[in-house]
């Protein structure tokens, strides 16, 4: 993609004289220095906050001791990875992480699309804006607040939901401490908080659709649903695919705060994920090397998933992300 962008881009004479490409590139950079300057902050951001810290991963292969530092801590090879794979909790954590991710993908991912489609069909601009703002708001609440509110509502001791259930003659349900209810509760909270925010990009993509297409289809007698199916959805398809791939890359980013707040002794068997495990092992017990190894493993899985999704997207004739 980048190659086509370059060759169809600004400086066709570069292609004409391939031997002098290097100096040509320099010239081009100098010529467009203002544009390159604009990239600089973003470039520095990724360099300083994302790439340089990655070097810290070496401690996953050491017995890191704070006072010895990275340079002097003893190397131990794959010891910490071996420990991870032989840990009795390992498969539970792995499957919990993957199941939560799948549920997220299945139940959360389509919601912003549906919501965006619905918002897109609203004719009264004022009403649309109002609803849009309302559905964004939860995104700005921290998980602490959201989880606290759910605790108050779902408590067995006078939680409003359980009181309602009791009033209607049902058994009270121990939502907070049940391994059956943890996953639905998690996904519902994610949807409640993020669905509105997730619509932004879809709405932007929908705004870019040529209105002429709609007009033409109306003339052909297409109903609202037909228009959504044949115009809106295909037009935002590439956006959906990109977001899907990125989402898959986040496979193991399930939100430490969120899960940690919901986690308790009663639902640990379904709720313990890599992030919470890293926290207990790493920060609470000071096992920095081990928790780095766990985090590293998690990232590798994430990378594999992205590459897989990207490859599939390309197979299906979409753009992919690289």
């Amino acid at each position: 993609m980048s190659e086509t962008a370059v060759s169809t881009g600004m400086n066709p004479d570069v292609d004409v004289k391939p031997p002098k490409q290097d100096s040509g590139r320099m010239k081009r950079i100098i010529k467009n220095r203002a544009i390159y300057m604009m990239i600089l902050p973003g470039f520095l951001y990724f360099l300083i906050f994302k790439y340089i810290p990655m070097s810290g991963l070496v401690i996953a292969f050491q017995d890191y001791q704070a006072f010895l530092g990275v340079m002097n801590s003893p190397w131990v090879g794959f010891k910490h990875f071996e420990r991870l794979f032989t840990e009795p909790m390992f498969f539970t954590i792995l499957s919990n992480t993957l199941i939560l991710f799948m549920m997220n993908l299945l139940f959360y991912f389509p919601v912003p699309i549906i919501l965006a489609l619905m918002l897109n069909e609203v004719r009264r601009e004022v009403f649309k804006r109002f609803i849009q703002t309302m559905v964004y708001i939860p995104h700005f609440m921290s998980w602490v607040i959201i989880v606290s509110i759910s605790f108050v509502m779902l408590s067995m001791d006078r939680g409003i939901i359980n009181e309602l259930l009791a009033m209607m003659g049902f058994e009270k349900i121990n939502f907070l401490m049940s391994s059956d209810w943890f996953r639905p509760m998690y996904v519902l909270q994610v949807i409640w908080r993020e669905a509105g925010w997730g619509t932004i990009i879809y709405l932007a993509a929908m705004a870019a659709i040529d209105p002429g297409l709609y007009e033409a289809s109306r003339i052909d007698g297409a109903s609202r649903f037909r228009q959504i199916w044949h115009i809106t959805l295909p037009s935002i398809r590439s956006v959906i695919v990109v977001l899907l791939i990125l989402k898959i890359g986040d496979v193991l980013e399930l939100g430490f705060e969120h899960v940690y707040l919901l986690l308790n002794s009663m639902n640990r068997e379904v709720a313990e994920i890599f992030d919470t495990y890293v926290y207990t092992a790493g920060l609470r017990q000071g096992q920095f090397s081990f928790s780095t190894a766990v985090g590293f493993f998690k990232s590798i899985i994430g990378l594999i998933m992205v590459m897989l999704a990207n490859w599939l997207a390309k197979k299906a004739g979409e753009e992919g992300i690289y």
Partner: protein
Amino acid sequence: MKKTKASTVLAIVTALAVLAGCGGGGGSASGTKQQGSGAQGESDQPVAITIMANLHTPEVPSDKIEKLIEEKTNTKLEIQWVPDGTYDEKVNASFATGTLPQVTLLKNAASLINMRDAIRNGQFWEIGPYLQDYPNLSKLKPEVLKNTAVDGKIYAIYREVPLSRQGIIYRKDWADKLGLGAPTTIDEFYEMLKQFKENDPDGNGQNDTIPLTDRNDLVYGAFKTVSSWFGTPNNWGEKDGQLLPEFMFPEYVETMKFFKKLHQEGLINQDFPVTSKTDQQNLLTTGKAGVYIGAMGDVSSLEPKVLEINPDAELDVQNKIDGGPNGFGVWSVPGYGSVTLFPKTAIKTEEELKQVLSFVDQLMSPELANLIYWGIEGEHHTLEDGQVITTEDTKLWDREVKPYQVLQVGGPLTVEGFLEAKHTRPVKAKAEALIVENNDFLIEDPAAALDSKTYNEKGVQLQELIKDATYRFMLGDIDEDGFQAAVDNWLNSGGQQIIDEFNASNEASK
């Protein structure tokens, strides 16, 4: 068409990158504190001292007492307050990044155990040999210092706490109304809970009281104290000449069964495994619950809140509940509460260490010890017959005095001229008396001064297995076989090594 698509995608990716940039990057330790040093030469120049301490109040404390300490010790203090709930994590993170301050508090014995490996690796100054040079620090009790020692060497100074503060706080007016006295056996205690549940003690005509209020803490909540009543050892116990963890004793299982019964019969708040301390106390102060098990001293902060809502309420305390074959017993801490360590990353030279120790020594002088613990006379307390009466204004107290109490070094047993309290509230006086009485019935932790490498490495994680199983048993999720399976899992995942190492360490120390 293709090109526009590509550029849309690009735009989106950029937008996402920006969003991600805005969203990410939370957490991480706040900036490195500059450590003070280099002011050795001039004596009239205030010495800069950096401190990290746990904060027990929700608000940032006022610096009134801090200023007075600075004035009296000729120092410039920089105190980094960290909320108590996340204190250990903060210490670990600061340790990993080499940014611990000169005076580092650890909040309890468990935190100190976590630091053992680092201490052994020479990360902290060994202060044992210096203590005798200081008039006040030299008064710290050797037997308590020994409990904090690592491989027999002393690295920490300690703050005294009563050995056992555990007991019951209950609504005496409810008990009186139902014709119940203070419970003295487990059966009587159970009977009290049952009556509180069934006989409408608050007289509102509804069957809506929760007898016992507990929280998500197996140690400082109700569980461990009740387990003491049943005769469970404190963390570790001896069976057939071998040290074994408490949960391998039948008394521990008895305690779990008791809680399971309470939970099934609705005699305890149904959500106790996820109830916070604040919520737990609120249940009592708002008159929904009638019994609280924990530190009896809490009655002094609970009583005003209870009275605020219901002026007719009355709280009482009780400690001796007789359940085990050996009569009443109560678990104890090993003679110290928080400890203070002196990291070598922050204190570079012996010279500097002596300065810091001299500051800490001054904190233990009667004048400063009283200032730190009781605040300013006339403002935070008044004196009557040489005894302290603290202010009734709990908000003022929480803002200006209570946070600084963690800086206390030693305590009433080691500071000469440490003022005693005169309790204007009789129930507080009684609580203090019962705390002293507890000293005759202590169940001590035989492993307090022992060491296990495996425990240091993964003791906390392994303990989670037991904690989970204990809660699941109490809530009826698993039965005794299930609990035994968890114990077996604990043994196989390293527990057996912990047992062996503690026993070896025990043999070695004999």
